C-alpha cells in the first residue's frame, strides 16, 4: 500500500468514525415527586384529598403507564382554628378505566366546613416518610353579600341584560386581594324515554368574534372586581342551546337560573386560572403554566367558598323557547 492509499484509507476511516451520531437521551434521571391535591370546599362538609407519585415510561407516551400512581397509607392532617382534623383512607371506582383499572385511592374528611376567615394548613406524611405541606386561608361567607337581592329576567328595569354586583366586608385596605370566579347557570331537566334527567347550562360572558360568532368565552377570574354583566342575547342563545336541534321542546323544563360567586384563595385562583383561562387570555405566554403551592412536591392546596343568588326567569320568557317552566 503506497502513501496515497494509506492517506485515503485513514481519512475514510476517520470520517466514518466521526460521522457517527452521539447517543443522547432526552430524558434525565427519573425524578420521584409526590403530588398532593386538596381543595377545601366551603359549600360542603365532605372534603377530599389525593396523593400520587410521579412515574416514567419506557417511551414518550405517558398514557402507556398502567401502574396506578395514587398512594394509600399516608397520614393527612388539616390544621384549622386551633384544631387538627385527620383524613381517612378510602377507595373509589374510577369513571374512566382506559388507563388505570383499579379504584382510585383517596382520603376524606367528614363534617368539616370552614366558616371563618382564618388560616388553614395541611400536612401529609407518606408511608416512606416524605412530608408534603401547604397553607392558605379560608373565607367567611357572611362577609360577602349581593347588592341586589331580587332579580327577574327579563324585566322592565334591568333592560336586555342581567347585572350582578356584590361587596365584601373583608375588602378593606389596599393590600386585600380577593379572587372571584362568577358564573351564571341555568338548571333544567329533560324527559327522555320517560326518564327525567337534570342538567346545568352555563352562560358565557361573550362569544369570541362578537355577537354570537365563534366559541363561547366564560367569565374569567376577577381580581377585586365586584360586578359582572351578562348580555341578554347571550342568555337567549344559552336558552336556545339547551334543546339545540331537538324539535321536542316540550320535553324540557327550566327549573331555575342562579348566579354563583366563587370566592377563591390566591392559590386555587392561580391554579384554576392557569388551566382554565389559558385558552381565553391574550398573552404572549407560549405554554400553559404549571402552578403548585405544595412544599416538598407538586399539586394544589386551595380553598373556596360559594355564594349563590337565584334568578327568577319570567314564565313567558321560558315558554317563548317552547320549554316548560317549574
Amino acid at each position, binding site marked *: 500500500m503506497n502513501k496515497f492509499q494509506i492517506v485515503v484509507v485513514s481519512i475514510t476511516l476517520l470520517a466514518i468514525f466521526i460521522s457517527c451520531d452521539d447517543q443522547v437521551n432526552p430524558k434525565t434521571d427519573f*425524578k420521584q415527586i409526590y403530588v398532593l*391535591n386538596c*381543595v377545601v370546599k366551603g359549600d360542603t362538609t365532605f372534603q377530599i384529598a389525593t396523593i400520587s407519585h410521579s412515574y416514567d415510561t419506557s417511551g414518550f407516551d405517558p398514557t402507556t403507564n398502567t401502574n396506578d400512581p395514587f398512594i394509600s397509607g399516608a397520614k393527612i392532617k388539616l390544621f384549622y382554628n386551633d384544631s387538627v382534623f385527620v383524613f381517612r383512607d378510602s377507595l373509589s371506582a374510577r369513571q374512566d378505566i382506559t388507563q388505570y383499572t383499579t379504584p382510585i385511592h*383517596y382520603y376524606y374528611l367528614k363534617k368539616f366546613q370552614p366558616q371563618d376567615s382564618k388560616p388553614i394548613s395541611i400536612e401529609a406524611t407518606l408511608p416512606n416518610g416524605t412530608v408534603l405541606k401547604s397553607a392558605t386561608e379560608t373565607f367567611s361567607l357572611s362577609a360577602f353579600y349581593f347588592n341586589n337581592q331580587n332579580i327577574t329576567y327579563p324585566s322592565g328595569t334591568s333592560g336586555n341584560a342581567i347585572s350582578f354586583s356584590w361587596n365584601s366586608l373583608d375588602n378593606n385596605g389596599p393590600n386585600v386581594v380577593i379572587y372571584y370566579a362568577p358564573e351564571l347557570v341555568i338548571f333544567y331537566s329533560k324527559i327522555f324515554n320517560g326518564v327525567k334527567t337534570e342538567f346545568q347550562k352555563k352562560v358565557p360572558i361573550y362569544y369570541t368574534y362578537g355577537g354570537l360568532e365563534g366559541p363561547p368565552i366564560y367569565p374569567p377570574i376577577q381580581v377585586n372586581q365586584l360586578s359582572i354583566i351578562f348580555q341578554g342575547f347571550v342568555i337567549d342563545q344559552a336558552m336556545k342551546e339547551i334543546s339545540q336541534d331537538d324539535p321536542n321542546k316540550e320535553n324540557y323544563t327550566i327549573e331555575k337560573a342562579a348566579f354563583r360567586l366563587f370566592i377563591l384563595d390566591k392559590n386555587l385562583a392561580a391554579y384554576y386560572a*392557569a388551566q382554565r383561562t389559558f385558552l381565553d*387570555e391574550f398573552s404572549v405566554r407560549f405554554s400553559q*403554566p404549571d402552578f403548585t403551592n405544595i412544599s416538598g412536591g407538586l*399539586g394544589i392546596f386551595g380553598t373556596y367558598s360559594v355564594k349563590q343568588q337565584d334568578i327568577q326567569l319570567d314564565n313567558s320568557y321560558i315558554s317563548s323557547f317552547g320549554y316548560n317552566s317549574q
Partner: protein
Amino acid sequence: MDHSKRNFPDKIRGNKTFLFLFTALLIIFISSFTNLYGQPKGVLRGFVADSLSGEALPYANVYIKELERGANTDNRGFFVMASVPPEKKLTVSISYVGYKSKQYIVRVDPYRVKDLRVELIPINIQLQTIEKTSQRVAKENATDLSLQRIAIRDLETLPRGVELDIFRSLQNLPGVQSGGDVSARYYVRGSTSNQNLVLLDNVTIYNPFHALGIFSSIDPDMVNSVEFYKGGFPAEYSTRLSSVLKVVTRDGNKNDFSAKASLSLLTAKMMLEGPIPHGSFILSGRKNYSDFILKKFRNSNSLPADFYDLFAKLNYSNDEFVKDAKFTISAFSSQDQIQNNNLQLEDFKWSNQAFDINYFQISDSPLFYQVDVSSSSFNGERIPNLSGAKGVNNEVSDVTMRMDFNYVYDSKNELSGGFKITEIHTKLFLENFRGQSTDIGSHGVNISAFLKYKLLQWSNLGVDIGGRVNATRLAGGGPAAFYEPRASLTYRFIPQMAFKASWGIYMQDLVTVSDENEVVTIFEPWIITPSYLNPSSAIHYIAGFEANPSQNLSLTLEGYYKIMKDLAIVNDQKYFPTDNDFIPGSGTAYGLEFQTKFHELPVDINLSYSLLYSFKDVNGVRYSPRYDSRHNVNLSFEYDFGSGWSASAVWNYSTGMPFTQIAGYYDKLQIDDLTSNYLLNSYYPFLILSDQNIGRLPDYHRLDLNLSKKIQMGNLKIYADLSLLNAYNRKNLFYFRRDTGERVDMLPFLPSASIKVEL
C-alpha cells in the same frame, strides 16, 4: 405617559454625567485648536475606487513611505491623513488585495487639504507582495477592539454552502454562536439575537431572514463591505445591547453597464448596474425556485417556503449641482411565505421594507457630514388555521432622520457627532387560543445625540471617548433620559503587539416576544418595552491583545465581561389577565476569544477558539440560555491553485447547546368545574421537566469543502462553485420531539453547486 415627571433624581444624575463628559470633550476640543494653529501642517485626503466599475474600495491600504504613516479607507472608500508636513515630496502607496498597487508623488500645502482620487486596476493573479507594512501601520493606534471588517471578496473564497450568506459567514467568527444549520440567526457573546442591530447602510432591518431563518435576506451580491462589532461599539451606534452589523451596499458600476445572473440549487438571481448621468444605479433581485435544498434542512420534510428580495440604489454626484456631494436613494424589500396548504398546520408570512435618502458632503476642510432620512418596516403574521397554535400579527415601522459629522484635526485627532430622531410604531395583534385578537402595540419617539473624540495624535496610542444621550426614550419605565457613555483604548507598547480595551453602557427599549425554548424561530415580533419595565441595559468590559509576530501572521486574544439588566422576559407565570406579559430578568456573559490568521500566498489559514459562559437570572433562578455553547473552534483553510482555481475547507466545532430534559410524568388535577367531583375523576398526564437547560445536546462539528473556478473570456466572467456540505455526514442533533422522542438531525451530507455569469 409623561416621562419628564418620572424619577427626577435619576434624570438629574444622568445630566450631570453628560455635562461632565461634555466639558471634558470641550477642553480637548479647544486644546486641539491650539495644536492646529501652532504648527503648519497639511491634510491628505483621498478616495480609492475600482478602475473598471468606479466602486469604492473599503479598507484599502494607504501608506506614506517617508513618514512611515498609514491609513485605511473607510467603508465609503475615503481616507484622511492629517498632520502631513507641507512642502515635501511624499511617496503615497495605495494597495488592495486583488488589485495592482499604485504609487503617487504628492506635495501638500500648509493648512490645505490635498485631494487624491485613486483608481486601482483589478488583476486576476493576487499580488505576492501585498503591502503588509502599510496595513500594519494603519492599524497601529486604531481603536477597533471587537470590530471585524469584512470586504465581500474575502467571503467569496470560503465554502458558501447553498448560498453565500453574510450572516452565516459571521458564525465563523469567534464569539458568534449559531442556532444550528437551520438558522442564520446568530448570538453574540452570550446575548439573545434580538440584541443584534442589523443596518443596511443606515437603515435598521428588523427580521432579515428567509425561509425558516435558514438564510439572511440580504443578497451578498449587492454588498460592498461589512462592519461587525461584537461588543464595545462606539457612540454612533445605539438601540441594541450586544452587537452591530453594518452592511454597506455597492453603488453600482459608474463606468459601464453590466449584468450578473447566478443560479444555485435554491435561488435564481439577477443584477443590473450601470452609469447614469453624474451617477450610477444598481438593481438586484433574488427568488427561490425549489424546496429541494430546504427539505434537507428538515429531515426531508417538505418546506413550502416562497421568498424573494429586491434592492435598488441610485447615486448622484454632480459638482455643478453641489460640489463634493453625493446623493443616494436606495430601497430594499424582502418577502417570505410558508404556506402548508394544510389547515392542520399554521402558515406564516413576513416582509421587510426599507427606504433611504442620503446626502453626503465633503467640505473644503477635513470635514465629512451626512444627512439621512430613512424608513423601515416589518410585517409578520402567523396564521394558525386549525393547528391550535396562537395567531400573531406584528407590524413595526420607523422613520428616522439623522445627521452625522466627522472632523479631522491637524493633530490627527478626530471629532465626530450626530443627532438622530426616530419615531417607531409597533402593533402586535395577539390571538388567544380561542381565536380572539387584541393589539398590545404602541408608539414612541427617540431623540438622541452623540459626540465622540478620537485621540490619535500619538502613533502608539489611540483613545476613543464619547457618549450618546437619549433625550427621550421610546417608552418603558425608569428615567426618561438615558446616557450611554463609551470609551475605547489602544496602546501599542511594542510594534508587534498592542493592548486594547473598551467599555460602554448600552440601552435597548425595543424588544422581541421570543420563546427561548422554541427550536426554530421563524420571526420574532417586535414591541416597544412595556411601560412597567425599565429599558434593557448592558455594560461591556472588553480587553485584549493583538500581535503581529510576522508580516503573514496575526494573533488576537480578547476577554469580555458583559452585564445585562432589565431584560424583558416573557412571564411564564402569568396566571391572571391582569398579570404582566413580561417580567424583568438579568444576564451575565463572559468569555475569551482567540484568533490567528496566517496568509502566505497561495495559502490562507484562519483558526479561532472561543470560550463562553452565559447565564440568565429570572425570578431568582439562574440558567444557561440555549445559545450558551461553552467551546467553539473554527478552522478555515484556503488554497489558490492559480489559473482561476481555488479550494477551501472550513471545520466548525461547538459544545452542545443546553436543553431541558424530561424527568418524568405525573397525573395533574384538572379543575373544569369548581362544583364537580374533580378530585376523584379529573386527572391528565403532565410533564415533569428537569431544571431549565441543565442537559446538553451532543457536540456539533461539521466540515465543508469547496472548489471554485473563475473563467474569464473577454468581458464574460463565469464563476462556478462546487461545495460538499457536512463532508463526513456528521449527524448533528438539532432537537428531540418531547412527545415522540423522535430525533431530528441537522443538515446531512449535501453536495451543492452554483454558477454565476457576469457580463
